[in-house]
């Protein structure tokens, strides 16, 4: 049960009508770690993300969560086992109040309304949105929406949380705030994170391990330092003039 790796992906392949989006993806994520998933557009990040969540069924391969094979499980079963996510475009439930939207997440494990509300308030407080809980999602600005979506995912009490471009479009100050938020959740609650991101300094400052995808395959796995100096990664994604030091400015 208490496996050191919370997630193991073995030989994952996803073929869409002849197009191979992911091919033979194998990696593992240590419990309590923050890992990054990067790669150029079309590398298969979104497909991998959705296959992990159970939106897509893999053509081949296995996914193990906490040592248990979840390859055939529904999204509901995965969520109940502690896997959750935020989506790239933070849309959540636009006409619900923040409180009720977050309650949707809480209801995944609670049935009573009062319990769900209490759990939702807790998650809202964790991201610092308590003053906004009566407002509707559609009445928040983009940054607060991201926090609200994060709170909704937190309300499911995830063990492993997948963040799809949570930082996209944020200012430097907002990014710094989100980084310390996620860092805190990781340290205090012990939540494991996988971050799909184009904002590279987030990856470089938060992650212990970075997985680089290219053309549907894993190009490289390593620490941010190793990744940022790997010739293959520099050519495929970062660009040969990439300066690793410049992207360490949000050090934990």
């Amino acid at each position, binding site marked *: 049960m208490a496996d050191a790796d919370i997630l193991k992906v073995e030989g994952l392949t996803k073929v869409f009508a002849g197009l191979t989006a992911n091919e033979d993806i194998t990696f593992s994520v240590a419990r309590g770690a923050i890992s990054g998933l990067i790669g150029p557009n079309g590398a298969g990040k979104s497909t991998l993300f959705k296959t992990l969540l159970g939106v897509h069924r893999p053509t081949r391969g296995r996914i193990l969560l906490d040592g248990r094979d979840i390859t055939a499980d529904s999204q*509901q079963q995965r969520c109940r086992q502690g896997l959750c996510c935020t*989506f790239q475009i933070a849309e959540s439930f636009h006409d619900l109040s923040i409180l009720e939207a977050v309650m949707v997440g809480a209801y995944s494990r609670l049935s009573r309304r009062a319990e769900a509300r209490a759990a939702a308030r807790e998650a809202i407080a964790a991201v610092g949105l308590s003053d906004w809980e009566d407002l509707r999602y559609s009445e928040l600005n983009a940054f607060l929406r991201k926090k609200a979506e994060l709170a*909704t995912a937190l309300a499911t009490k995830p063990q492993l949380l997948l963040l799809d471009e949570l930082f996209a479009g944020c200012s430097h100050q907002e990014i710094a705030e989100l980084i310390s938020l996620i860092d805190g959740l990781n340290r205090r609650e012990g939540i494991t994170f996988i971050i799909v991101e184009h904002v590279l300094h987030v990856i470089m400052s938060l992650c212990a391990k970075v997985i680089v995808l290219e053309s549907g395959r894993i190009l490289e796995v390593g620490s941010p330092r190793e990744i940022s100096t790997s010739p293959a990664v520099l050519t495929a994604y970062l660009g040969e003039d990439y300066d690793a030091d410049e992207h360490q400015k949000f050090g934990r």
Partner: protein
Amino acid sequence: MSFRFLSPAALRTTGYAGVAALVAAVAILPFFPSPSVTYAMGLILQIMLFVYLAQAWNIAGGFAGLFSLGHSAFFGLGAYSYAIGVAKYGLDPTICFLIGSVLAAGLGVVTAVISTRLSGMFFAMVTLGLNEILLNLASQLTWLTNGDAGTYLRKQFTVSAGTAYYLFLALCIAIFVLAALVRHSKLGTMCVAVKENEAFARALGVNPAPWKIAAVVISAIATAIGGGFFAMYQGIVMPTMVFTFSISIKMLIVTMIGGVGTLWGPLVGAFLVLFDELVRASLGATFGGVSLIAYGAILVFSALFLPKGIMEAVRRHLLDRSARHG
């Protein structure tokens, strides 16, 4: 306006007080008999029928977003179950309502299961088709329904306009209580969540199907019960009287004008029925079809200026005010 100084909680209290006053006014009206009161009661009965039906539609169409164009199917099932049950088989009225509810629930499950496969317009088309099937069955199965001639009810199975008036007042109160319970329960939250963002809801561990089915079944049973009472005070049920698109569309339009998916939308939208009846009464004799023209004009107006309904516009307005006045 004076309400700018009120807090949201005080505003809510004012709203509830307004509704309570309205209910009280409707309830005591029959105690002042006069020809004009009799006329007003007829009008209010029509309004209450559609407020009830609109709220029943709103539970599935508004909360869960299952945009049905064929709710008259449930209405007709309820009306025919009552009429055929008491007139042809001499069943107890309660049993008839039970049969109508079971049939509507069955059709509701079918509809909801279809809705998990189809969305939006395609779902609407299917509901339209289901109603069409029932319309033709009702007119063809003459051994059961007496065909287009309709099923008549003997006097002991009907109610007077006065009784119907209070019956529908009670039904209206009941459906608003039911809708409020649904909206504020887990069911309501799940339905709205699935309607607004099914992909995210699924990622949060929501399985949409059971919630959709529950919403449609509740909506279908409520509509069928309304159909049963409708048959009770009309004294006759004919295929084109109940399985008609105009009932489905009226349920939907009243809700839309008031505010789809809002709790009070169906009540606010009811002014449309009032308007329709008044226009028909004053001009109908000299200008045939005038009420349809008026209906169309209101629809165009509301689509242009109040796309989310009156309740939403009111909410916006109050929100802006409270933002400005702190």
